[in-house]
């Protein structure tokens, strides 16, 4: 089969990116998943249960909101896809609802996950509570500190949160620990990866589960603007799951400009950044050949972003392909610009966005969108979890 942006090859490649570079200990698990994910997801009972949960539990479809005051400010037509209104406060739950149903059908009884901002951890703990499954979430020690409310939410939901103490003690290291847990528990455990990263079939699996975002966007755009196709779709990229979901049904529509926004931290070339598409080169991270930040010896370098969810030295293989083929435009936003965008969205639209999402909002003035253009921003999550950071940086924000 010819690979497309929507469909990697059988071995999980998007162009030169993807694959499954995993130790033998993980091979049976990943292979089982690879052989079964498409057929399980195609089962009518799976679809029925998944759709019902998305509607009644997650609260989908999420609204597409015309942001009139932001539109006036930027002199273009801005719509916000309200993933912040999903149960648990971010898009992450679209994926965990699907994967928990998959895990049940694979006969797994124990769930593990990694988390950066804690949103994926909370979304995983939530569906585990719903299904009565054991849940262990790995989280970098630094992230446990900067996203404290989410640590308490996970514990309240019955999950065990384990601190990742190695490396930069952030998302990369939490992912390492989750993979090591899976190696140690190969039979009863399913690993719910939180983004479009990891070995094949995870990038494709997570992209498909997040694709509901753009599926809804097309219908809502038709209703509100008379056309299913906007001129721009903008999303932030950590691993890339909300962007993959927002882009998915526009990938093969060349008239739609796809804009992926990465975290530049203190500045792209400051040495404290997570702008992988600029600083990254091809290599293998977490089982996938993709763009990653590394030194000349192939050692993975420590990323930095104020936003725990974007503080990751790689991007999913689909995004590496989108960057390489120039199908998507990549923009990097610094900490301070993101903080300003938090205040702007809060004051103009009455919506307090997550720090991750604020990076997408901060890209608005770089798009070059005209007055008649329709710009959809994927509002991937709400800012409750970041309140402590917002208080700390109140001077910079206000």
């Amino acid at each position, binding site marked *: 089969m010819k690979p497309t942006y929507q469909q990697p090859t059988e071995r999980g490649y998007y162009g030169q990116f993807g694959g*499954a570079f995993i130790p033998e200990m993980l091979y049976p698990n990943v292979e089982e998943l690879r052989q079964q994910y498409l057929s399980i997801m195609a089962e009518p009972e799976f679809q029925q249960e998944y759709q019902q949960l998305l509607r009644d539990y997650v609260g989908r479809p999420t609204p597409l909101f015309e942001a009139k005051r932001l539109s006036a400010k930027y002199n273009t037509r801005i719509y916000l896809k309200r993933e912040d209104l999903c149960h648990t406060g971010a898009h992450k739950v679209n994926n965990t609802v699907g994967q928990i149903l998959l895990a049940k059908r694979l006969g797994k009884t124990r769930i593990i996950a990694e988390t950066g901002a804690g949103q994926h951890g909370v979304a995983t703990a939530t569906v585990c509570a719903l299904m009565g499954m054991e849940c262990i979430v790995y989280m970098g020690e630094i992230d446990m500190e900067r996203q404290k409310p989410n640590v308490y939410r996970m514990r309240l939901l019955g999950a065990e949160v384990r601190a990742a103490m190695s490396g930069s003690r952030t998302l990369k290291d939490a992912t390492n620990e989750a993979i090591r847990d899976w*190696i140690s528990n190969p039979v009863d455990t399913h690993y719910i990866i939180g983004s479009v990263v990891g070995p094949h079939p995870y990038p494709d699996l997570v992209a498909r589960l997040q694709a509901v975002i753009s599926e809804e966007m097309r219908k809502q755009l038709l209703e509100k603007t008379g056309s299913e196709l906007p001129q721009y779709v903008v999303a932030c990229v950590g691993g890339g799951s909300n962007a993959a979901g927002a882009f998915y049904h526009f990938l093969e529509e060349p008239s739609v400009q796809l804009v992926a926004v990465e975290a530049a931290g203190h500045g792209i070339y400051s040495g404290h950044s997570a702008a992988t598409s600029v600083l990254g080169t091809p290599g293998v991270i977490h089982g996938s050949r993709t763009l990653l930040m590394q030194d000349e010896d*192939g050692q993975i370098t420590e990323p930095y972003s104020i936003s725990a969810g974007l503080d990751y030295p790689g991007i999913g293989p689909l995004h590496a392909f989108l960057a390489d083929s120039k199908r998507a435009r990549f923009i990097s936003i610094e900490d301070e610009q993101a903080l300003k965008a938090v205040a702007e969205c809060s004051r103009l639209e009455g919506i307090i966005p997550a720090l991750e999402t604020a990076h997408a909002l901060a890209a608005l003035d770089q798009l070059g969108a005209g007055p008649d253009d329709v710009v959809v921003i994927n509002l991937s999550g709400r800012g409750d979890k970041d309140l402590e950071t917002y208080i700390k940086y109140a001077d910079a924000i206000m």
Partner: protein
Amino acid sequence: MNRIKDAFEKKQKNLLNIYFTAGYPRLHDTVPILKALSESGADLIEIGMPFSDPLADGPVIQASSTVALQNGMNLRVLFEQLQGIRESVPETPILLMGYLNPVMQFGVDNFCREAAAAGADGIILPDLPLDDYVAEYQDIFRRHNLRPVFLITPQTAPERIRRIDELTDSFLYLVSGPGTTGGANTQAEGVQEAYFQRIEAMNLRNPRLIGFGIGDKASFQNACQYAEGAIIGSAFIRALDGVDDAPAAAKRFVSSVLA
């Protein structure tokens, strides 16, 4: 020439393979430790090429890798250190073990050329998939007379074990149970033995070495009942922790296992 094969022909039982991380505890301990291991009776030696994110390794090897990287170890330094090693360690097989990414960045062909020139006999890259090995690496390995070593776990399917057995002329690395390196055996009694016996009964071409969780004389001898030998890594690294004279500690360790 195949030093790995020769080692298994010379000694059919109780082969001891020791793993250590290059550049640990100090940058220039690599070669003195290697010589000490060989002199004190290790039958094969695996040199770990440190990586920032060693997914298959437990805390001990992770920590040694971090120290080694901080000490300045990288592939170029390692190959320099190994220059001329075959003059002092002519026979003991040397295997390089590490992760794919540093090798990819070095260039696979370059890596294999330098590894062979430095006297290495085999390569262990746990995150190199079999299909990718066959498609992209096999010819290069062969050209440089390097043997790959592949891991087998309790979950590896029989057909896959046969395929792995066909793909090399070295040994099969039997991972003793679920877990990363250095983990204790937490399996119910008999489970591990049944797995080792199941593999033994397959009458494979290659000899087998059991690794992960082997750490002393007792566990070494136990493993040797089910295979041609065993591999010790984390326990050896722990024995180097905080010592002034790493080669002396290496000798003491090997003697304690073989005593």
